[in-house]
């Protein structure tokens, strides 16, 4: 087993740690007075955190030359999708009793639900096209363009987070600043240093 493979295992296991602790605390009834709300909030925040980590891969490669990081990006992105899926499914089961009409009604009436839902749906094509063969089929350039949707999903996620707060916007604003930094770097890099362009071979 080479180091890359081993590092992937480390990343895989560590990314599951929050879910394992959530499950552990749920089993011992340590999620507090409102476990559903706790699970919802935590999986929502984890989705954004994994999106940010995924989106930080390219800036870190460009800035520090840590090219190997690209090997881990797919897994990070899929974890963002996975936690987003858990978030959506928790809402659908426990808040809406899996009633399609209730969920559609919610989307129609509540902008924050609609925005959250749309952001999640943006991640679906990205997850589907994350395989090597799909990258090949789309071609590096097209694939890259498509996967810029991750930024739109992240912006939507933060707006969704912001809209559910009652008055304390500290965390959504912090998250927004992180995203602005990541996006800002990409824009800066695109204009400043075209010479530092990296190979677009994302297959591994």
């Amino acid at each position, binding site marked *: 087993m080479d180091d890359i493979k081993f590092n992937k295992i480390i990343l895989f296991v*560590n990314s599951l740690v929050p879910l394992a602790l959530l499950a552990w605390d749920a089993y011992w009834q340590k999620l507090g007075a*409102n476990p559903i709300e706790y699970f919802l909030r935590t999986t929502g925040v984890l989705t954004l955190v994994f999106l940010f980590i995924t989106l930080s891969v390219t800036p870190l490669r460009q800035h520090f030359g840590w090219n190997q990081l690209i090997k881990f990006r797919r897994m990070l992105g899929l974890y963002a999708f996975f936690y987003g899926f858990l978030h959506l499914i928790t809402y659908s089961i426990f808040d809406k009793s899996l009633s399609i009409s209730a969920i559609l009604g919610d989307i129609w009436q509540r902008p924050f639900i609609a925005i959250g839902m749309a952001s999640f749906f943006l991640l679906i094509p990205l997850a589907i096209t994350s395989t090597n063969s799909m990258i090949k089929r789309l071609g590096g350039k097209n694939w890259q363009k498509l996967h810029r949707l991750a930024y739109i999903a992240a912006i939507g996620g933060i707006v969704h987070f912001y809209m559910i707060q009652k008055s304390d916007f500290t965390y959504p604003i912090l998250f927004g600043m992180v995203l602005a930094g990541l996006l800002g770097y990409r824009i800066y890099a695109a204009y400043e240093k075209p010479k530092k362009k990296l190979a677009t071979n994302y297959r591994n």
Partner: protein
Amino acid sequence: MVIKKPNEIKSSEITPEDVYLNRRNFIRAGVLAGTTLATAGVYKFLNPPPPKEVKTAEINDIVKANETDITSNEELTSFADITNYNNFYEFSTSKTAVARAAEDFVTRPWTVSVEGLVQKPQTFGIEDLLKFTQEERIYRLRCVEGWSMVIPWVGFPLKTILEKIEPLGKAKFVAFQTLYDPKQMQLGLFAGIQFPYVEGLRLDEALHPLTILATGLYGKQLPNQNGAPIRLVVPWKYGFKSIKAIVKITLTDTQPPTTWNIAAPNEYGFYSNVNPNVDHPRWSQATERRISEVGRRKTLMFNGYAEEVAKLYDGMDLKKFF
């Protein structure tokens, strides 16, 4: 002639391949365990467990009031849940962090000044207020966020002290104010609402027999996170109307400003009666999650107290006066 190889490494000194691989695996197992523990540590740091249960003094001679009949068939929310899931923005906007942040809040000595349009303004010490007959009142509490509890409060009708200070004829409203001490309430800096927290009721709402000043719950004096040493409880209105840690009560002739209404006038009205037919602009009020239940239950008009209070709002458009 024998040619000797210089510095020959004895074959016994070469690490055998399986040992080399074992050592490598051992280190890898260590790295894996180490990073996992570190990640778990970060997670636990960001999601700390609740503090130990608070111990407050018992309240003696509690009278069981007749009004408790209306909810006596409902299961009480546990003491642990009532004391670890609190909205008290002066301490923290995280409901699970309030208990710890309010641990050292000083509630003695404490006075409540009752003033304004009254015949006999008076300042009550908390000892005086605890001398009134203390009743147990089991009420549903419905938070505007869409969750609810059933709480065995201890307290006395607000009416008791309003009668003592004798409101003037022109008094139409009652305004309440929470203590604001930034030294003790440091997390309030990020709350996004104005302090001191203020609330208000119409005089007839304040005089209603269901409206109480609570001094305790579960037979014990109020824990800090629940609004010690004295708070309002208006069971047919959203929880934020039931103002905590009261230091001032003022009788007025005009509708007093209220904190959440100042913060977001289109989302929180002066009345804020529990009403499943009037949604919050951003979420539905038709259902609620009763703490300790998994699904959601239907929210009742006036939180189930319609029989007692609906007449206070006869002829009013409750969509307009939300």
